[in-house]
């Protein structure tokens, strides 16, 4: 458990260090995720061992963004004026993205006969 959590933190640390020293826009933890995925492919044994710890972290994922979400209190005046425009943008874009993504996937899968 401690070892697995340490592995995850080490990959985050590597990600943070790399993005900062190279001046990339990629968030450190995302690079850490990509590197850990590559590491899993190279050493599948580790992936199996870390699985339960990773699942534990991810099962309460939504709790983790409550603190940032509360930060909306600092944007209340802005939400009053820009709120409707923002909501409209989110609505249209979410519907379009779901429709486009699903249609592209199902059409190509049908063409290629790619079964589950």
């Amino acid at each position, binding site marked *: 458990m401690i070892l697995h959590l340490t592995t995850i*933190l080490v990959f*985050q640390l590597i*990600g943070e260090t790399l993005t900062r020293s190279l001046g990339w*826009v990629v*968030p*450190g*933890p*995302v690079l*850490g*995720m*990509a590197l850990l*995925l590559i590491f*899993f492919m190279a050493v599948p044994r580790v*992936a199996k061992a*870390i*699985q339960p710890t*990773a699942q534990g*972290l*991810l099962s309460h*994922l*939504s*709790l*983790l*963004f*409550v*603190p*940032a*979400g*509360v*930060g*909306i*209190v*600092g*944007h209340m005046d*802005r939400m009053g004026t820009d709120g409707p*425009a*923002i909501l*409209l*943008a*989110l*609505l*249209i*874009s*979410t*519907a*379009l*993205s*779901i*429709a*486009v*993504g*699903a*249609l*592209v*996937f*199902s059409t190509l*899968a049908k063409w*290629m006969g*790619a079964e*589950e």
Partner: protein
Amino acid sequence: MNELTQIWTYLAEEPLLWLTATLIAYSVGDAAFKASGRRPYVNPVLIAVTLLAVVLWMTATPYQTYFEGAQFVHFMLGPATVALAAPLYGNLSRIRRSAIPLICALLAGSVTAIFSALGVAYAMGLRGDILVSIAPKSVTAPVALGISESMGGQPTLTAVLVILTGVMGAVMATPLLDRLGVTDWRARGFAVGVASHGIGTARAFQVNETAGAFAGIGMGLNALLTTVLAPVIVSLFL
């Protein structure tokens, strides 16, 4: 009364109070979500955020004071992002089997999500850091906050937009995809995961196991892709 004020003054400055308040608010939200039969619009995070915002407002507590306690929860976003590698790895064989439709749908869904959100927002007169904060809204929250911050947006605003996008996707996915006549569960799940991350994925798992698994893949891959795409597309609007 005076003593009570003293106790309050002490507690309000300590991390313990706001850390506990965050966990209580989330538990209340989660209980409401379960009591509703897991309806997507009864979102635990949205409930928790509203409760805490009201409490902060009533007690005149600055956000900085609140965050000093809540930062212990906030910190876990980083490790949780790294941990997303595990479910992605677990689905590698599924990703390989439908690689081409999957990659094309990922590109199409991701570009559509970012471009149409920025396009509508721009047309409605929004400019500057609000656009930057909107761009990563389809991505899972920990990654979206990181993207927003590294591009000069407002991470706290992004957090709320991410949650709203997730709730919208979870609510509209089934009726929308039924109307479009998409019957492939892989396609349905994947598109929902790309457009509305974890909240959409949780909804997909409720509807169909395959859809849920592909939603998870979509969420993970879009987190990686948007990291690269968002700065490029945002630069077109600034």
